[in-house]
């Protein structure tokens, strides 16, 4: 079973283009995360797949069948909403049972299926409660249970964790990971949190301004970002991007000078904060920068350096930085194999 977006464009009545010619294919059993900042079209893509919106042009196919005009109830898709959207007048049991009631299953079967999925999500003790009596995390589980109880092939989740507090969010993330491994289902998960995307996804689709920027495994997206936007969006703190110029294999940008494998001309150099190394200022290829701010987020330390008017450079290390104070110069080196090169004009990855 595959899901395909074919040249899908969605324009809203007010003229905004939410999605611009999206092409995306994924397989059964994947955990696809649609990732992007607000306004990137990730929620629109999810709602189009659900059938809650109709594309302005293009087609959506499930298993090779065109479902573009098929109403939601015939698509075989379950969905979890950001605000849970539980039926407040029904008990938790009835909320979960509702998709089965609509399908007119016999009562005994409904009972056993609801109990099974409630057990899976560890909400078996709350079945008699009303949604108003649940905590955020419990309501979230009920919403997931309702989306899964009738065993749809695909389960959509539109920012399901963003209404939970930080601790609970981590916990639910683990639960979802466990659930995905246990059930042979396709999950499509919308989020703006790159960490959630990295931990949950089998593949991440990064969207920006309604366009697909990169679609790959989390590792590949982190290690080989397709452009400057992805590089800066993935990873916290963000990848350092330094605008400068290459002349004869040497890059210069602000106070930074380092050897590169890159043809001459303007270029944007990228390096992850944890890949910048301390170096003796006298050593060949070392650069001296002044510490602007020091943030100790144990066990890591973030050092933010000034770069002669250019964008600040951030370093992340687990080394002991107790003796380093703001205002102090520090010798750094930029290992060649950790560098990323982006086109200075388009931001696209070079090589």
């Amino acid at each position, binding site marked *: 079973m595959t899901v395909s977006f074919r040249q899908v464009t969605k324009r809203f009545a007010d003229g905004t283009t939410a999605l611009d010619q999206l092409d995306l294919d994924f397989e059964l059993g994947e955990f696809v995360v649609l990732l992007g900042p607000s306004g990137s079209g990730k929620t629109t893509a999810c709602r189009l797949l659900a059938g809650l919106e109709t594309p302005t042009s293009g087609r959506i196919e499930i298993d090779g069948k065109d479902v573009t005009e098929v109403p939601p109830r015939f698509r075989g898709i379950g969905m979890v909403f950001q605000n849970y959207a539980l*039926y407040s007048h029904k008990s938790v049991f009835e909320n979960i049972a509702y998709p089965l009631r*609509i399908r007119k299953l016999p009562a005994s079967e409904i009972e056993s299926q609801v109990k099974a999925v409630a057990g899976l999500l560890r909400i078996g003790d709350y079945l008699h409660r009303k949604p108003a009596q649940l905590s955020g995390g419990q309501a979230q589980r009920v919403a997931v249970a309702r*989306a899964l109880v*009738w065993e749809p092939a695909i389960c959509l989740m539109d920012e399901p964790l963003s209404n939970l507090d930080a601790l609970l969010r981590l916990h639910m993330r683990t639960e979802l990971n466990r659930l995905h491994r246990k059930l042979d289902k396709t999950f499509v998960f919308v989020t703006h949190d790159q960490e959630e995307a990295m931990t949950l996804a089998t593949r991440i689709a990064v969207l920006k301004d309604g366009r697909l920027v990169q679609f790959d495994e989390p590792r590949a997206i982190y290690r080989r970002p397709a452009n400057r936007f992805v590089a800066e969006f993935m990873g916290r703190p963000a990848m350092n991007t330094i605008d400068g110029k290459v002349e004869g294999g040497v890059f210069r940008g602000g106070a930074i000078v380092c050897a590169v494998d890159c043809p001459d001309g303007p270029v944007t150099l990228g390096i992850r904060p944890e890949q910048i190394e301390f170096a003796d200022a006298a050593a060949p290829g070392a650069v001296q920068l002044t510490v602007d701010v020091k943030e100790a987020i144990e066990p890591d330390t973030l050092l933010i350096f000034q770069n002669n008017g250019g964008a600040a450079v951030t370093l992340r290390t687990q080394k002991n930085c107790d003796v380093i104070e703001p205002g102090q110069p520090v010798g750094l080196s930029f290992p060649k194999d950790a560098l990323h090169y982006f086109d200075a004009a388009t931001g696209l990855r070079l090589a």
Partner: protein
Amino acid sequence: MNRSYKTLAIGVLACVLVLALTPYVWMLLTSFKGRLDILSPQPTWFFTPTLSNYPAVFIDKEYLPLVYNSLAISLGSTALSILIGAPAAYVFARTDFAGKEDLFFFFLTTRMAPPVSIAVPLFLFFTTLGLTDTIYAVVIAHTSFNLSLVVWMMRGFFAEIPKEIDEAAMMDGRSKFGAFVRVIVPLAAPGLAATAVLCFILSWNEFLYAFILVAFEGRPLTVGIPGLITPHGTLWGQVAAVAVVATLPILVFTFLVQKHLVRGLTFGAVKG
């Protein structure tokens, strides 16, 4: 809240209560008075009560079917208004379309003209249809003003329900209409009940349209009362008896739903 403020508030409320309730209490007393007590130049709180006014008007004058007419008209008009108005309000709450707010305002404008200005056109209209002197004419006439009330109040109630609830119902397997009928309507039930009660009261109390459209067969209680003003004098005791019976359902309904009624009115007004 400090004490003097509270005392003042209670004082004001008491004054309003006395002003509002005195005529009602007077009417209640009148319905139990004999003709002499009623016409006595010295009004009195104490008299020998009689029950004769009630059978005199409801049995002898055959006013009992009027209660049935009033009920049929009010229930019919309420049902019709909700049936047409609630789906319309739902569309107003959920869908965007060109001219939406203008159309919404148009519903309100139907209530801006003084009722008497459309009384004659209405009469001609129903004469053409051959519906005059039937309760159907009154049901339709009352629906014309109750409909705008339903649309205005229910839009607020529906808008209060997150639209993800409709969408969740659709993902769970309902059609768009199914989601409205099976999920949204039950969720909006308190608001729907408040709106229905208000429609019922407005229709139950209405006099002008009913008076113009029906004369005999389909008369509701409100139209029955002027029939007691005879060339030989006004039968005040019977007028009061009919009025007491006419106010009973309103009292009962208001007590039953007053909580929802206040909430319904304020939400409808603010959020509409």
